[in-house]
């Protein structure tokens, strides 16, 4: 199979990121889309595809509901591809993949992929907005859907905490490694004007922070915030004539291992990145040794650790040692989450890693720009490590 660009990201739009209310999700989406089209040097009439990932604003009623009707809010006409996509945190990578396939098959020419959400509303907490407590009393919930909640299984913090604990028990991983990841993210974020948390973080501050769900402290868990990010996907040929340096996609993959939740399986320490990464590396014709920068979905510090293992940057179980000593930090051997990631910059699901990958591949990272940016590995990941999508992006149309 010929190696080379399968399509390119030609435009990027990032709204202001805030933990305060800035308006409903469709308005934020429209803002990001407008910025992305302008960034690409395109006009609205050039856009003939729209893929939407609505976060918690999916499937709602009222002004904060983000649906395919957003097409009309923007006045987009005669689209060759339009859908809302829902694959939990893996959606962003998938949107870009399906956009490129549709373009390659001639269904459309320029597809906007957008993530927007506004979960932080007056009177809600981050935990409250994402907690499973919100399902209590909901219609159409069967008895056994409530069983885990009856024991106090209230959301993602506990679910990922259980996974992290399993890793600690099997491999001796410690919180020092989680702290390394949180601190490294923050070092990058201090140089990112888009980042919400830009004050440096020390080991002492990490270990003094409150418990959320042991083994996780506050700084192990992503923030939740409002905002939107959009990218314009087009063909490699088309992207060359546009305003921005093209960001080519050289490889892509997905991995959805399935979790039977029974004896003999270790899904808590094995994510979909294993399968997804193999597919993407093979397609790009590269190995992990060719990767210059990682932009990983980091809903928790542990997610970064297990994803690095599953992409093969170290052996299974050795992620805790691998990240020590500033490996992922500015100046480290494997610059990772160079904008601060979800932990420190902004929580836009898979658009957090993808947006920073576009910035780095273009060489527009300013103070935080990584010098060698030939290959950037981007992950989107959802569920409890259940759903994974990989993109390998590059400023180059071919790498060999």
């Amino acid at each position: 199979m010929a190696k080379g660009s399968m399509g390119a990201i030609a435009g990027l739009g990032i709204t202001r990121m805030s933990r305060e209310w800035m308006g409903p999700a469709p308005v934020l989406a429209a803002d990001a889309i407008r910025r992305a089209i302008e960034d690409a040097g395109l006009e609205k009439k050039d856009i003939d595809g729209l893929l939407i990932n609505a976060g918690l604003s999916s499937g709602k009623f009222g002004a904060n509901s983000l649906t395919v009707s957003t097409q009309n809010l923007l006045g987009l006409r005669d689209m060759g591809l339009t859908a809302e996509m829902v694959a939990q945190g893996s959606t962003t990578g998938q949107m870009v993949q399906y956009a490129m396939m549709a373009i390659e098959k001639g269904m459309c020419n320029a597809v906007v992929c957008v993530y927007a959400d506004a979960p932080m509303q007056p009177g809600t907490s981050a935990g409250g907005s994402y907690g499973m407590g919100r399902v209590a009393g909901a219609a159409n919930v069967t008895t056994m859907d409530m069983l885990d909640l009856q024991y106090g299984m209230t959301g993602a913090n506990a679910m990922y905490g259980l996974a992290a604990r399993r890793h600690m028990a099997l491999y001796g991983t410690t919180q020092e490694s989680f702290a390394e990841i949180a601190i490294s993210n923050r070092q990058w974020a201090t140089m990112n004007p888009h980042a919400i948390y830009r004050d440096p973080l020390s080991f002492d501050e990490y270990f003094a922070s409150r418990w959320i769900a042991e083994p996780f402290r506050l700084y192990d868990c992503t923030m939740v915030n409002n905002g939107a990010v959009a990218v314009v996907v087009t063909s490699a040929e088309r992207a060359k004539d546009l305003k921005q340096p093209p960001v080519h996609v050289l490889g892509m993959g997905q991995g959805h291992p399935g979790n039977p939740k029974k004896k003999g399986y270790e899904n808590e320490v094995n994510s979909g990145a294993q399968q997804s990464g193999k597919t993407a590396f093979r397609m790009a014709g590269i190995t992990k040794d060719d990767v210059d920068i990682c932009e990983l979905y980091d809903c928790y510090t542990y997610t970064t650790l297990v994803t690095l293992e599953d992409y093969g940057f170290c052996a299974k179980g050795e992620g805790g040692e691998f990240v020590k000593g500033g490996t992922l930090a500015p100046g480290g051997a494997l610059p990772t989450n160079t904008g601060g990631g979800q932990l420190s910059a902004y929580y836009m699901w898979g658009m957090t890693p993808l947006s920073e990958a576009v910035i780095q591949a273009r060489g527009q990272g300013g103070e935080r720009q990584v010098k060698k940016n030939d290959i950037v590995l981007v992950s989107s990941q959802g569920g409890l490590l259940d759903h994974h999508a990989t993109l390998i992006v590059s400023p180059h149309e071919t790498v060999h």
Partner: protein
Amino acid sequence: MDKMNTSEVEAIIQPDEASAPFFDGAANGRYMLLRCKACGEWHAPQAVMCMECASPDLEWQEASGKGKLHSFVIVHRAQIPGIEAPYNLSVVETDEGPRVVSRIVGIDNNQIEVGMALNVTFGKLTNGMSLPYFTPG
């Protein structure tokens, strides 16, 4: 320490016809899991079909009530009425195979260890409903 006075926990779950054997079993000191009538595979209480042979024919059967701790967290934010934070939330690997979410009782949170052997025990909620928990065995 997690005091684990389960009798203070409010029921947010309402048994229905399909789940009644699970709660009736608990009330009678029997730990019930689902089992496939076609291939014999055991399943967690949430199963809707056999994940191995795809048969829809599952039935409740009494399980051994023995297992080991797969993982646990100590949750520091109370959200369920009657469960005081910090509390342990645990995943138990039953001897039959399915892993279930539960809580460990009869032990300090700081003595809980992944891999420890567990036995089922039962506690009542404020409305008198019985629920399975696990205790070191």
